[in-house]
């Protein structure tokens, strides 16, 4: 196997870390020195080689550790994975999409043999080998969505389309930025977005929903979203707020560079063929301020973005309490020089 997987944790002793290669390929979300919500949607996959935009489902050095973390979260709280009965077909669609994509994009890690509906799946990093019958749930240990998302980085929402809206009728959500599947399940696009400030009034959600309803088979899209997390924790759920909320108070000017993480979500949209449902994978990337600032363009820009951000967004994203310490720390990397357009590091 070509890829090395980190031995690391996302809770307790938090041994999560990024290699120089992971830092280089980090999906830095800001293409300019300021930020406001917008319908920032582009085609997927596609992008420079060795970036997380290149493949349908990015697999990186955190894969094995992330899957272990998901297992722990699910064992404590099975409701993080839910699928209403009419969504099983969408689960099969998702399983097919992921298995076919991963076997094609990472042939030394994943293999899929198909003979009609007799499928044989090999996942080398996780040591899984499974023969099963496609579209027959009795041949898998759990439902198809759960089966494949226990083997794929990122959260997954499956949306059912009806009445010109999208409904969150299934999902595997263990690495979310403070929202709950158990609360949102069965809600529509406007209902689950209700807590977001400003965006509805700006017309962002009306436009975004119209766009999503028109996403067709074979046309895939992505957008980046971001927030700030103290410690490299995947499970920042409302259910476990008592575990991670208080950690925000541990930030000091001395430790902020190491303990404060920029949390980036690479969100993608896929129309699923058999169910006509929409798959919405939300892949989370974490990097602390110190590692971000090792790239001069990113250090300068992050300083400017977080310094000037709308207070309602800082509040909603939950970092207002530490904003001053963060901005003070980042100011040392900002010499006032202009930054180049786009998200990628300067060569």
């Amino acid at each position, binding site marked *: 196997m070509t890829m090395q997987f980190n031995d690391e944790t996302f809770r307790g002793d938090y041994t999560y870390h990024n290699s120089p290669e992971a830092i280089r390929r980090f999906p830095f979300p800001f293409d300019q020195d300021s930020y406001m919500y917008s319908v920032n949607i582009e085609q997927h996959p596609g992008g420079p080689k060795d970036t997380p935009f290149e493949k349908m489902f990015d697999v990186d050095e955190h894969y094995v550790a992330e899957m272990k973390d998901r297992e722990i979260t699910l064992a404590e709280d099975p409701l993080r994975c839910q699928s*209403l*009965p*009419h969504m099983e*077909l969408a689960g099969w669609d998702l399983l097919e999409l992921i298995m076919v994509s991963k076997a094609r994009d990472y042939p030394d890690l994943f293999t899929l043999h198909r003979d009609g509906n007799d499928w044989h799946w090999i996942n080398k990093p996780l040591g899984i080998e499974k023969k099963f019958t496609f579209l027959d749930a009795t041949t898998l240990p759990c439902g198809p969505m759960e089966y494949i998302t226990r083997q794929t980085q990122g959260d997954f929402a499956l949306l*059912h*389309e*009806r*009445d010109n809206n999208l409904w969150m009728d299934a999902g595997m959500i263990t690495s979310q930025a403070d929202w709950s599947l158990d609360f949102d399940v069965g809600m529509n696009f406007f209902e689950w977005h209700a807590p977001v400030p400003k965006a509805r009034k700006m017309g962002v959600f009306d436009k975004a929903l*119209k766009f999503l*309803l*028109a996403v*067709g*088979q*074979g*046309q895939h899209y992505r957008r980046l979203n971001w927030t700030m997390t103290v410690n490299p924790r995947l499970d920042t759920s409302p259910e476990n707020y008592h575990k991670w909320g208080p950690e925000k108070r541990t930030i000091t000017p001395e430790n902020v560079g190491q303990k404060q993480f920029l949390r980036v979500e690479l969100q993608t949209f896929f129309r699923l*063929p*058999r*169910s*006509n449902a929409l798959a919405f994978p939300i892949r989370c990337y974490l990097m602390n301020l110190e590692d971000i600032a090792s790239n001069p363009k990113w250090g300068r820009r992050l300083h400017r973005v977080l310094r000037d951000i709308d207070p309602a967004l800082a509040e909603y994203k939950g970092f207002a309490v530490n904003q001053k310490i963060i901005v003070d720390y980042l100011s040392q990397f900002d010499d006032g020089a202009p930054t180049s357009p786009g998200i990628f590091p300067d060569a």
Partner: protein
Amino acid sequence: MKKLCLKVTAVEQLSPLVKRFRFEDPTGATLPVFSGGAHLTVEMPEGDTIRRNSYSLISDPYDGSAYEIAVRREDRGRGGSLYMHTKVSEGDDITVSLPSNLFQLDLRARKHVLIGGGIGITPFLSQLRQLDMEQKPYELHYAARSREEAAGIKLLPQAAHIHVHISEEGSRMDLGAILDGQPLGTHVYTCGPDGLITAVADQTARLGWPKAAVHSEAFTAPPPGEPFDVVVKSSGKTVHVKADQSLLEALEAAKVDIDYSCRGGACGRCHTKVTACDGRILHNDHWLSDDERAAQQDIMPCMSRFKGTRLELDL
């Protein structure tokens, strides 16, 4: 927009007015599977313009070996169906879109009642295969004027839950009898003439069905109309729309960059802002709200037309 270049491998006359077409990949590759009720957009090159019409898929959604559609000849339409009937034959190349679905089954339903009138039977042909595969209870009602016109009969399986109503033979479809007494949680789907869709809506309203359980196929072919001119704001260019052309087709022919998907007024992709309007927009889409229509600041170029002196689009 992703496209598929396929071969026409079969053309069959199903009835005096309806032909069935079968498309396969020239290399024998498997085509993407789809969901019941999905349609394809077929490209028809004519001179230097390309006409595109959408047709429901009638083949097995999970069978990637071919796509099939059925086309009724409309002698008074804009020519798309005439093109299919007169210019397309076995062995021809044909370019189509990937399948897309604006008329999907609501899989939450306890039972599905499918009602097709005339050529409106087509989306149900793929849906009933999906329902068979999912082992969901359903019944299908197919209404046609005469047996000769009922092209769908050849494509329907014979089964107790498939009902054919031929009005000429005195077996008119009785919507009251069909819809009354259906179990709670039944969904009904209608495709066919406007009158049929309205009749089902009225009947279900009378019986107190929830609106969300009543579905109808929204997209139709763009209607021909009188020619008119539009101005493209960014370039100041005037584009002429011919009587048998849609506004979208005219803009495409003039190389104006514009997005689309269904080309039938149902998906929202071609939604365009109007920057000046001196006259009346003839809205033929199913996308804009009544308020938006009245305001005359939005138009769906795939379906809608204009009557007046000046229409300027934000393109």
